[in-house]
């Protein structure tokens, strides 16, 4: 075999090894993506099933009345939940957290849903490692797309001034990719709400801002401990004159240092030092007792009655 052929042979094997290695990586990546999305879809079906059928939802222990040895002669007062009756159906989704935590991942503690987007995912928080769910999926496998998650600095009951949720900006449209839909003014104007589901209540947030920001860590860069700091942070956002930012300026009046806001953070393609943020303020909440009490009940004819 002459030298030229030897060189071609070596090149052939080099190309082949690179091709096989790259293919293996790409296949593993896309199989992982598909599997994660299947798990998420399975969880969404659980919510669908849980909401469509009237079933008992696990309530926090302190709300479960303790049985007494003697039978109580006093009637249990009926609670009036009619004030919630006119809320939209999104507020009445039942998320079976107990089942999800037992069968899928114990770190699931909330669920996020934004209508007309693919954002319909569990929210997780790792007890020790804040970066865990950047690189690990909900089924524990390593790799993309990771999970929607919060860091330990945020409590899991969404009572902090600013709860920051992170999610990858996946090219296949999953995770927090659809946050970038809010870059379009029409979409921002027409889509106002983010729903957060917790075991004991459902939260509805109204979106007030969507903008590009630098990559500073929001929880470590601003002092939220004092009211002046919280007001100042709101002033920064509402004071922005960036042409690309969408801000509902008229909402500033109704917000103050006691507001609860959420920040949804994801990356921007080609801008590693920036993040795209969508922020919303808590405007409505409904306790789980009301969610279950106001669930539609099927009669004998299968007709749903609210």
């Amino acid at each position, binding site marked *: 075999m002459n030298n030229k*052929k030897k060189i*071609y*042979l070596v*090149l*052939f094997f080099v*190309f*082949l090894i*690179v*091709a096989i290695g*790259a*293919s293996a*990586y*790409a296949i593993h*990546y*896309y199989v992982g993506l598909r599997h994660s999305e299947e798990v998420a879809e399975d969880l969404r079906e659980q919510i669908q099933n849980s909401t469509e059928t009237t079933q008992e939802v696990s309530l926090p222990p302190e709300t479960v009345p303790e049985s007494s040895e003697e039978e109580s002669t006093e009637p249990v007062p009926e609670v009036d939940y009619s004030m919630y009756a006119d809320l939209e159906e999104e507020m009445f989704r039942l998320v079976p957290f107990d089942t999800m935590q037992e069968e899928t991942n114990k770190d699931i503690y909330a669920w996020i849903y934004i209508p007309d987007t693919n954002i319909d995912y569990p929210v997780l928080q790792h007890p020790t490692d*804040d*970066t865990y769910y*950047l690189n690990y999926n909900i089924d524990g496998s390593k*790799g*993309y*797309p*990771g999970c929607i998650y919060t860091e330990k600095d945020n409590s899991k009951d969404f009572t902090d001034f600013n709860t920051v949720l*992170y*999610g*990858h*900006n*996946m*090219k296949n449209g999953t*995770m*927090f990719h659809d946050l970038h839909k809010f870059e379009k003014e029409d979409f921002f104007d027409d889509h106002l709400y983010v729903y957060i589901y917790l075991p004991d209540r459902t939260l509805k947030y109204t979106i007030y801002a969507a903008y590009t920001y*630098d*990559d*500073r*860590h*929001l929880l*470590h*860069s*601003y*002092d939220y401990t*004092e009211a*002046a*700091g919280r*007001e*100042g*942070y709101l*002033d*920064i956002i509402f*004071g*922005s*004159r*960036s042409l690309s930012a969408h801000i509902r300026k008229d909402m500033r009046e109704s917000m103050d240092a006691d507001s609860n806001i959420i920040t949804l*953070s*994801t*990356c921007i*393609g080609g801008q*590693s*030092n920036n*993040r795209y943020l969508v922020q919303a303020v808590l405007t409505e909440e409904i306790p789980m007792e009301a969610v279950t009490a106001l669930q539609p009940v099927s009669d004998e004819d299968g007709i749903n009655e609210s």
Partner: protein
Amino acid sequence: MKKLLALLCAGILTCSMGLVAFASSPDTTNTTPDVTENTGHSTQEGVKVWNDIVVDGKTVSADALEITGLSDTVEAVAESEAVARGYANVVQAFDVTFDGEFSSLTISFNLTGGLTSDIVALHQLKDGSWEVLTPDSIDPEKGTVTVTFTSLSPVVFVSGAAATPGASTPAAPTSPKTADGYAMYVAMLAVVAFAGAAVVGKKVVK
């Protein structure tokens, strides 16, 4: 004759230098008086500002300058900004306004806090973001720091940066990187590598 003429011209030039003695007094009704000497400083809100300020290259009085304290919220924001950028000390914070238009405005301040060689000014821009301004000069003897602004608003003098001077992002924690991976590019590499193997393979077979 030529020498006499040259002597006459030299004499006229020498005498003409003294003509300024006959100039009239400055017009005190002028609303923007020119100040050609540094005659000291004035104090507003505890901030000493030297009387000469330079507006678009022209030295003018600092009378058109107003310094006020910051509201609690803006001061909190300013301090948060300093912390975010890794500065250890907030020396002094205030709001500066100027009655007039300008594209560059140079002001010398005497700060009540410590004047160190690493002092910089954090300045809030009209869009609410903050920029770092390195002083034009720091004079330890006079205790002044001179800064040139392209616009005016809240100013915070800070020092004790953790990062090297001039760094735009001092050692402050950053938000998690939530970009997608590189699988797409790896997949393209696989395609190119297979194509390369096919082309080279044909040559091997020949």
